């Protein structure tokens, strides 16, 4: 089985681009990734593309061919949809196809256009990641679902809104120097606590913003990298995916995310590493509580102990285990379909040493990316490692 190298990474500025189509955003991210990789456009054998709400936001289905066109490549292209994990699952399939020898050069990425919708429109669009019959019709919103997870977490393991505020403060601090980030500004715990309530106990500053953006990575086989003398010193050595019942009501415990635990266990075993080996992580913090659940699912913290990780300074820039040095979904932004591959693009740069925040993890060799769909009915985890050239 061949090793899969990340040869190139590209991310647009995440933020408000209400006038730009998702195909245009993807064209930018993809061109950046292909140029970064130094591969010939003609060598790209497939495009694996993530998008979630294109039918609602752009009245556009069947987006795979548009994604390939946007890159100027003539190759089969397929759209993958798994809510907020859309490009994570697209990437996973690309990784497997390179490994299996099906292809030597693939582009995996994603794009999402969201800010052209009204706040009400995006609230409605995001809600369809929940169970329509049993959740949406009861008035459960996306923040409302995570709020119910937070309520359950507080009841079972303890924790306060202030603990969650520290997660937001940390991720904003990480985004300040990241030019891809939507919010390049710091916030305070007080400001987070004082922000308006969205769904108790979650307030505005516990939530990621509505974002437009795209991201892409170029995957190549080890043989191709060697034959073309590519500078591709980061490999994806582990991939895992987990699933859970769609509606919160059908889960045994809504204060944990077992789909992510399954994904992480599979990815670690695949890579031959353990949670102890992880030096840096990008996790799916669509809400502050989601980062806490992610840290515990990834085995980086015991169940019930992730809540104070940011407050205790363990996951901050200068902590032992920096998490979301990109700013996370919280401050970098969350263009839903683009998030999974943007995490891997950021981690690649962090490990290569050319990320603006690489200085905080100079010795890092193992990174983990955690991408969740909906209220973690879907989860994808990838392990990235720096490899000797």
């Amino acid at each position, binding site marked *: 089985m061949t090793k899969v190298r990340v040869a190139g990474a590209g991310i647009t500025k995440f933020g408000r681009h209400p006038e730009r189509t998702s195909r245009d955003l993807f064209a930018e991210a993809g061109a950046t990734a292909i140029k970064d990789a130094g591969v010939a456009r003609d060598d790209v054998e497939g495009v694996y593309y993530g998008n979630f709400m294109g039918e609602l936001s752009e009245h556009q289905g069947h987006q795979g061919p548009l994604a390939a066109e946007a890159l100027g490549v003539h190759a089969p292209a397929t759209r993958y949809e798994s809510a907020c994990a859309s490009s994570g699952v697209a990437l996973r399939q690309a990784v497997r196809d390179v490994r299996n020898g099906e292809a030597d050069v693939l582009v995996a990425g994603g794009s999402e256009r969201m800010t052209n919708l009204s*706040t*009400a*429109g995006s*609230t*409605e669009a995001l*809600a369809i990641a929940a169970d329509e*019959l*049993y*959740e*949406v*019709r*009861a*008035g*459960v*919103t996306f*923040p*409302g679902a995570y*709020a*119910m*997870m*937070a*309520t*359950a977490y507080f*009841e079972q393991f303890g924790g306060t809104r202030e603990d969650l505020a520290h997660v937001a403060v940390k991720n904003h601090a990480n985004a300040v120097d990241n030019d891809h980030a939507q919010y390049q500004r710091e916030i305070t715990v007080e400001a987070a606590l004082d922000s*308006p*309530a*969205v*769904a*108790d*106990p*979650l307030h505005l500053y516990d939530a990621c913003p509505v974002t437009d953006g795209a991201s892409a990575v170029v995957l190549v086989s080890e043989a191709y990298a060697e034959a073309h003398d590519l500078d591709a010193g980061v490999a994806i050595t582990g991939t895992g995916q987990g699933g859970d*019942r769609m*509606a*919160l*009501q*059908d889960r045994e415990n*809504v204060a944990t995310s077992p789909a992510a635990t399954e994904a992480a266990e599979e990815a670690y075993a695949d890579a031959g590493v353990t949670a102890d080996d992880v030096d840096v992580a990008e996790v799916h913090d669509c809400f502050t509580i989601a980062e806490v659940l992610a840290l515990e699912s990834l085995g980086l913290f015991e169940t019930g102990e992730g809540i104070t990780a940011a407050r205790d300074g363990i996951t901050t820039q200068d902590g032992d285990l920096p998490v979301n040095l990109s700013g996370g979904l919280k401050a970098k932004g969350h263009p839903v379909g683009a998030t999974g591959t943007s995490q891997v693009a950021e981690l690649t740069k962090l490990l290569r040493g050319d990320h603006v925040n690489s200085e905080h993890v100079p010795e890092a060799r193992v990174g983990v990316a955690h991408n969740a769909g909906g209220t973690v009915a879907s989860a994808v985890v990838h392990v990235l490692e720096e490899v000797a050239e």
Partner: protein
Amino acid sequence: MTEDGESVRDAGFDEFLDALAEGDSYYVECANGHGSLPPRRVCPECGSADLAETPLPESGEVATYTKVHVPAPSFADDAPYVTAVVDFGPVRLTGQVLADVEDVEIGLKVEPVVSETETRGERLVVFEPR
């Protein structure tokens, strides 16, 4: 809704709401005792196709909840409201609690009924504190 405005039912789910509205609510139970909510053709836990409608316990306990301040457009006039996942033992059910959030806590005993949203008059599951 179809294009001409004629309402089309969601088989299984609408019958479930009808029964709940008539005080005759049920869940489906497989041969191995796993509970789930319709529509089902097999048990999501074990795959058993031997499913029987079984009476839902009259009351349940709040397992978790939130007060939603920012609703979707279809609940614009309903907000703020409290949603909860309620534990009935064999199954859990999501709906809105007819109480102030200050009066809701995990473990609160409630019974399910069917009501209508203020915004669009659509049916939904609500819970009345006992």
